[in-house]
């Protein structure tokens, strides 16, 4: 999206961080025991993730089910508490903020859910659904209805639909209501959890367009979580690829397809069929076998080594640090793809690497541009 094209890593315009995720871990204990429960294991849902979202930017997070993307987004809005790490919103630490302190934060940080059917109260009319956040925000009673009408119009719904119930709308329209509800409190940031995956293709495009228009109009920032890499690519300025609770790669979206460094990213990209028969036939594709291992007992070293075609001994023993390359792209891999010798020489270990990652940077090796 255009507003934030400067928000990458270029130091020139010095983008302002809006949301900072600093080494956040979210573990779910697994309890068991004869009579009294003890923690016998932990699901490493989010395992030391560091990300920064800048003002006006759209940061995409992709990954397959179980990669921790939904847990992460829920932790950011503090529906879940992080096990470790800090979350800062506009500079202030909200990691352990209490309900009262969270209220102003939540007005600036809203969430839109995947299933518009399930996230709207079926017993309330649209007018009530949209009025509640306005009233909570302190909008005067008589201003509420005009605002609600305006909101409906803004998301492309007829203001006359005010008195309808959610079930009287189609899926796409319900998602518009969800977006209107998030917009009602004039947030700066909207966390979008698979906002279009339940919708039909033509409706998906409508909602994506709407999100882009709103972003331009209100200068919103988005955190866009989805499993569909092509949708994420379309909307995002930067994309973080997650696998089993860790960030594998973080890059600008234009570069992700052209120059994936991490074999997992490459696998994801090659798994996606391109809706263009000729290009699809021309392209060489490598289908990665196997399935993601369990997050209860994740693999040692690099989490992807069990499925990775390039894995060697080091991958099994040492967790690769997030390595920063010249263009600002980050990848946690000992044997990165599409990296030249020059780039390797200037590469450095990123501050955002998990604490548990090793110091070893990838070494120059004969890399075939596959």
């Amino acid at each position: 999206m255009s507003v934030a094209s400067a928000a990458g890593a270029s130091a020139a315009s010095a983008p302002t961080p809006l949301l900072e995720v600093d080494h956040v871990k979210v573990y779910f204990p697994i309890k068991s025991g004869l009579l009294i429960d003890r923690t016998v294991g932990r699901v490493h849902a989010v395992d030391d993730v560091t990300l920064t979202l800048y003002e006006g930017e759209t940061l995409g997070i992709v990954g397959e089910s179980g990669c921790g993307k939904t847990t992460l987004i829920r932790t950011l809005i503090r529906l879940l508490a992080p096990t470790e790490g800090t979350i800062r919103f506009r500079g202030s630490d909200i990691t352990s903020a209490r309900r009262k302190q969270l209220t102003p934060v939540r007005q600036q940080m809203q969430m839109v859910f995947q299933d518009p059917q399930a996230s709207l109260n079926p017993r309330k009319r649209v007018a009530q659904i949209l009025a509640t956040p306005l009233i909570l925000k302190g909008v005067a009673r008589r201003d509420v209805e005009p605002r609600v009408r305006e909101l409906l119009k803004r998301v492309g719904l007829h203001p006359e639909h005010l008195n309808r119930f959610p079930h009287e709308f189609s899926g796409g329209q319900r998602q518009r209501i969800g977006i209107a509800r998030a917009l009602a409190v004039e947030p700066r940031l909207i966390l979008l959890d698979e906002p279009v995956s339940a919708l039909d293709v033509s409706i998906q495009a409508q909602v994506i367009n709407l999100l882009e228009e709103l972003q331009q109009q209100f200068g919103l920032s988005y955190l866009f979580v989805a499993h569909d890499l092509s949708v994420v690519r379309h909307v995002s300025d930067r994309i973080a690829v997650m696998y089993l609770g860790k960030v594998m790669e973080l890059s600008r979206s234009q570069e992700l397809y052209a120059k994936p460094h991490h074999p997992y990213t490459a696998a994801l990209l090659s798994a996606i069929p391109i809706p263009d028969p000729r290009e699809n036939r021309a392209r060489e594709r490598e289908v990665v076998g196997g399935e993601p291992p369990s997050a209860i007992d994740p693999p040692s070293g690099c989490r992807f080594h069990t499925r990775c075609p390039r894995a060697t001994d080091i991958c099994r023993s040492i967790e690769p640090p997030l390595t920063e390359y010249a263009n600002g792209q980050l990848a946690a891999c000992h044997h990165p793809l599409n990296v030249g010798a020059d780039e390797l020489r200037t590469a450095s270990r990123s501050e955002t690497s998990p604490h548990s990652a090793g110091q070893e940077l990838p070494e120059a090796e004969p890399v075939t541009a596959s």
Partner: protein
Amino acid sequence: MSPGAHLLEVSNLKVSFQTEEGVVRAVDGVSFALEQGEVVAIVGESGSGKSVTAMTLLGLTRSPNASFEGSAQLEGKELITASEEQLREIRGGEIAMIFQDPMSSLDPVYRIGSQIVEQIVAHDFQVSKSEAMERAIALMDRVGIPRARERVRSYPHEFSGGMRQRVMIAMALSCSPKVLIADEPTTALDVTIQAQILDELRTLRKETDAGIILVTHDLGVVADIADRIVVMYAGRVVEQGTLDEIFYNPQHPYTWGLLGSITRVDRDTTGLLPSIPGTPPSLVSPPAGCHFRPRCPHAFDRCTDVPALEAHLPETPQHVDRCWLSAMQKRDLRQVGDRIGLAADEPVIA
């Protein structure tokens, strides 16, 4: 072509359901043919009638509220009017089906092996239980389930989504069907698993020479595996042609809209997507004439009559569509910038 020349021939199929709101015309005149070893994709959005069409071929939509017209013939055998017993033999025997959600498509209380055996035994009265189990193990092995001999004793919940879909494929293959219907077989799966399952379907088509009907909304999947495409909208076929015809020379505005709406991982598509305005019509009271008319920016007065599904391009007689625009007009109108799409000149109000 004489009837029976095709493996499967559906002609003018109509399915309607009596509901409290009125008669829902879920499928309203669908015709297509399927040959051996061919993959025909039925593409459309929810409510387009693509799943109903597929399930009707197996008689799975039969109910007291449903009524059927037209015909569907498997090697000359009529399916629409077939008796329950005839249908029972065809189901899983000559036509097998794979469903969308592998999580819920297997019975949670029976072991994987016995669910496959159940199908084998239902079609082969001579086979013994242990022979059937051996066949089940071989099938599971063939569709890439590791340690098949142990895993026949597993329950569905002990399998991942991808593995369950492999079980569904193994089950579908168990009686060497002539036609395989796959209803959104990869929609519920993660992309890397989706690629594995599509590979599996490709291999299978090569090995068995079965005709495959792929029902999907995902044009990526279609581009990956289909030979021919049937595009459905609001119960009708709006366009039908080969893969390349549909992708590179689409004739119906709805097809343009679909192609324009998709995001691509290999392209920079900044800016607004040329999306289709509005929402699909109600199937109880669809608009007169072309069903796509209310959403079509190119509609004109003739569109209140239903256009016939016929070829408009002399060089490709098998490429048919339902639209009144001339081929010339279409070539100009479908171009939105450098891509094909539905040019919408006004903001979308849903």
